[in-house]
């Protein structure tokens, strides 16, 4: 029962941007959707997986983004409409395939939906997928509100099918993860028959073989497609202009920045002075449309996230048009009017616009600003921490202790997942490198070969179960084959926990809830010749012993630390232990303890009672993992198994 399929055409519903994209795909008659989880994109597949049954859809969580693109492309090759959503990093992961797909062309509508994360709100980079559209030479569309998220997605399928080229629909966190009203259109009755034609004329796009060669021919073809895309873009209703006929200044924007521009114009009451050109077709820019607006005034201010992508493209066109329309002043990021890094917001845009219009904008009265600043300093900040009873806290506790005791400056190469927080105090700052998915093990594989140059530090990598399948496997194979000396600690919490427990190849359930075969991480590691040990991270002693043993071994070792995520729906919040602090035994701040549990271990389930000088358990928050009971130096924390 989902609004996505139950909603009535013509009516408006409050949808998340990602749901609007999903609805757009449904209205376009999408058949196959594949992706890899990643904030802010995951809800597109999640919402489609819930309606897969009643729409004859095939939805899958693929092992990584590149594979998901290949899966979706196959559907397109077989004549179906296919969509592939991902977070911005996903485009990097799949770019090798995409570069070839751009030349090989597609058949059924093929839409790539990268969801960028300006400001890196839930990422560790703010990379731009728009660059890829230019690199791959494929059309790029950017919805500027929720209704457009749906409408443009739908249109993207038609465009893709007309051009025989994949089309990018680029979203951002503030659109994907925000909600707004969307009016529904009709859901088509589709019953497509899939079939792959491959024995026609070799260069026939619809019936020949699908390949990027011969390259010069296919590359030329791709440029012809782009030309056609530009023709469509010239007349696209999704490119809009609002404002006076002869404005002092035109704001040029796209995506979520459209909201900020409108807000800024409203806040400054500048609607009769400036115009707003909101572009949805940002690559390639349609030159006739651009010339029309460039001719309207002399000053332009491009508002976009993150890199000055449209600004640069616009400047190229303006230069080419200069003999006809004169020299234009195009402002934005390159001249420092807007920051080159981080996400924008209504305030940044309003202040910048106020500056350009010679206005002063003060969002709050001075005395209010001053007083609230004094008051807010009294509110302690909330730092990021592993959840109460998180297995990662226990895992990194042991990893830290073992490496410190081992005393050879051993270190951890970190990776992507909740355990990324292990670079912070909540993970005892154990991880010392952090890059892309699977890079921890790849970087470790390199470190592990440096003995010949005198490096004798133990090298560890950490990797989650989902990350293992997504991208750590090639790195692990590399380490085994090239005889690197590393220990990979596999933090297996039985799900893609960080993004909301999506399935992965190690689990028995597929994206649509169906039963599927699970692949054993242990068996995979053993089969390639790694030494494998398995431990429960909550069992501190046996985990420590296992890790010490592996650190003595050369070659590739894998320590699988298996404990289900505390938040997992399967866990059902059942406590294993009732935990309590025996106050009379708690050493508190004195020599011999120094508040180990609340000062260092810092599980939110523990409270330091300043007045009593004793630790306590917060019963509401404690999930009963019992780990604090194992680490207390004076056995003051009692754990009783819950019957």
């Amino acid at each position, binding site marked *: 029962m989902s*609004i996505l399929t139950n909603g009535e055409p013509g009516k*408006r*519903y*409050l949808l998340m941007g990602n749901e609007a994209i999903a609805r757009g795909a449904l209205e376009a008659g999408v058949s196959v959707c594949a992706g890899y989880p990643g904030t802010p994109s995951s809800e597109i597949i999640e919402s489609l997986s819930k309606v897969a049954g009643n729409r004859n859809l095939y939805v899958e969580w693929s092992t990584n983004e590149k594979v998901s693109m290949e899966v979706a492309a196959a559907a397109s090759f077989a004549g179906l409409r296919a969509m592939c959503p991902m977070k911005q990093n996903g485009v990097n992961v799949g770019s090798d395939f995409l570069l070839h797909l751009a030349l090989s062309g597609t058949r059924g509508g093929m839409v790539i939906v990268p969801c960028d994360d300006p400001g890196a*709100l*839930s990422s560790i980079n703010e990379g731009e997928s728009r660059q890829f559209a230019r690199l791959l030479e494929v059309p790029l569309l950017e919805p500027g*509100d*929720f*209704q457009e998220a749906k409408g443009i997605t739908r249109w993207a399928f038609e465009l893709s099918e007309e051009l025989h080229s994949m089309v990018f629909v680029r979203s951002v966190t*503030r*659109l994907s*993860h*925000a*909600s*707004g*009203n969307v009016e529904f259109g009709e859901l088509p009755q589709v019953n497509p028959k899939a079939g792959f034609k491959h024995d026609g004329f070799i260069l026939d796009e619809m019936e020949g073989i699908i390949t990027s060669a011969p390259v010069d021919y296919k590359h030329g073809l791709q440029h012809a497609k782009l030309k056609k895309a530009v023709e469509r873009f010239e007349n696209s209703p999704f490119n809009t202009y609002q404002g006076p006929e002869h404005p002092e200044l035109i704001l040029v924007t796209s995506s*979520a920045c459209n*909201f*900020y521009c*409108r*807000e800024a114009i409203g*806040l400054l009451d500048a609607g009769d002075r400036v115009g707003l050109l909101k572009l949805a077709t940002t690559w390639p820019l349609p030159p006739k449309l651009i010339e029309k607006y460039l001719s309207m005034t002399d000053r332009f201010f491009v508002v976009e996230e993150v890199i000055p992508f449209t600004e640069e493209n616009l400047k190229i066109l303006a230069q080419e048009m200069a003999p006809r329309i004169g020299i234009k002043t195009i402002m934005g990021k390159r001249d420092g009017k807007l920051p080159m890094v981080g996400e924008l*917001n*209504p*305030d940044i845009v*309003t202040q910048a616009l106020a500056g350009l219009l010679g206005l002063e904008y003060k*969002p*709050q*009265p001075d005395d*209010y600003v001053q*007083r*609230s*600043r004094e*008051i*807010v300093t*009294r*509110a*302690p*900040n*909330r*730092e*990021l*921490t*592993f*959840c109460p009873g998180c297995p990662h806290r226990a895992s990194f506790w042991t990893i830290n202790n073992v490496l410190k005791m081992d005393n050879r400056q051993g270190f951890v190469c970190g990776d992507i997942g*909740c355990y990324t*927080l292990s670079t912070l105090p*909540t993970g005892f700052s154990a991880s010392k490198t952090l890059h892309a998915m699977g890079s921890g093990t790849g970087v470790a594989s390199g470190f592990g070969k440096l003995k010949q140059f005198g490096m004798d530090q133990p090298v560890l990598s950490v990797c989650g179960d989902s990350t293992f399948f997504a991208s750590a496997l090639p790195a692990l194979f590399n380490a085994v084959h090239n005889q690197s000396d590393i220990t990979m600690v596999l933090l297996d919490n039985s799900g893609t926990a960080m993004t909301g427990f999506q399935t992965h190849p190690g689990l028995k359930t597929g994206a649509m809830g169906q039963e599927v075969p699970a692949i054993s991480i242990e068996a995979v590691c053993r089969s390639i010749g790694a030494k494998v040990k398995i431990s429960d991270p909550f069992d501190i002693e046996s985990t420590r012993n296992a890790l010490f043993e592996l650190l003595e071994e050369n070659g590739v070792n894998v320590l699988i630390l298996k404990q289900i995520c505390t*938040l997992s729906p399967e866990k059902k919040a059942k406590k294993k232990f009732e935990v309590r602090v025996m106050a009379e035994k708690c050493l508190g701040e004195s020599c011999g303890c120094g*508040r180990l549990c*609340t*000062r260092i271990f*810092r599980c*939110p389930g*523990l*409270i*330091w009672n*300043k007045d009593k000088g004793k630790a306590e358990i*917060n019963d*509401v928050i404690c999930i009963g993992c019992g780990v604090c009971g194992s680490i207390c130096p004076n056995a003051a924390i009692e754990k009783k198994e819950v019957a």
Partner: protein
Amino acid sequence: MTNIQLSQDPYNLIIAGVGGQGNVLASRVVGNMLSRKGLTVTIGETFGGTQRGGSVMSHLRISSGSAFSPLIPRGKADMIIGLEPTDTLRVLGTYGNPDVKTICNMRPIHPVQVISGEPSYPDLEDAKNWIRELSRDAWFLDATDVAMEMGAAILGNIILIGALAGLNELPLDREDFENAIGLTFSGEKVQVNLAAYDKGIEMIARNGR
């Protein structure tokens, strides 16, 4: 669309709290209730690790016209619903103004630094005074305590929705609530949520508890 005249257009509502307090659900329910009335609603969320003890804030832009930015500009909140006292203060600092109204749940959730004994959490009476100082009107509810009496701390968010409805600033009515909560829950849970909603109306009528 709609003929509804809002006291402010857009009317800017912030629901702020800590990950796990049901903040996102509350904003979605309020959004759906108002959306049913034909109003245009935009909801933005800011989060710093929603399930990991971080601050979570939902911005609701409510208008009889078009969609607004999912982020409210600085100083432009009309109403702040705070599920946690110090988070309420932080939100007031950024989005408050001398005309803002505030409903605050007085159950503190101590950040991990406080738990671990470093900075101290402010005295709750001080917090109330500061919230009053930064708001035109402020109501303080022990929503979590009442919710726990009703069987689940998480119902605190629904009590606060009831309280907001009780202030009659926005066209929020019981039927729309029932419908909106029905999108997430069914059966007995709807009844429990309705009871919490009613409790909130009752509590705000007594000007807090």
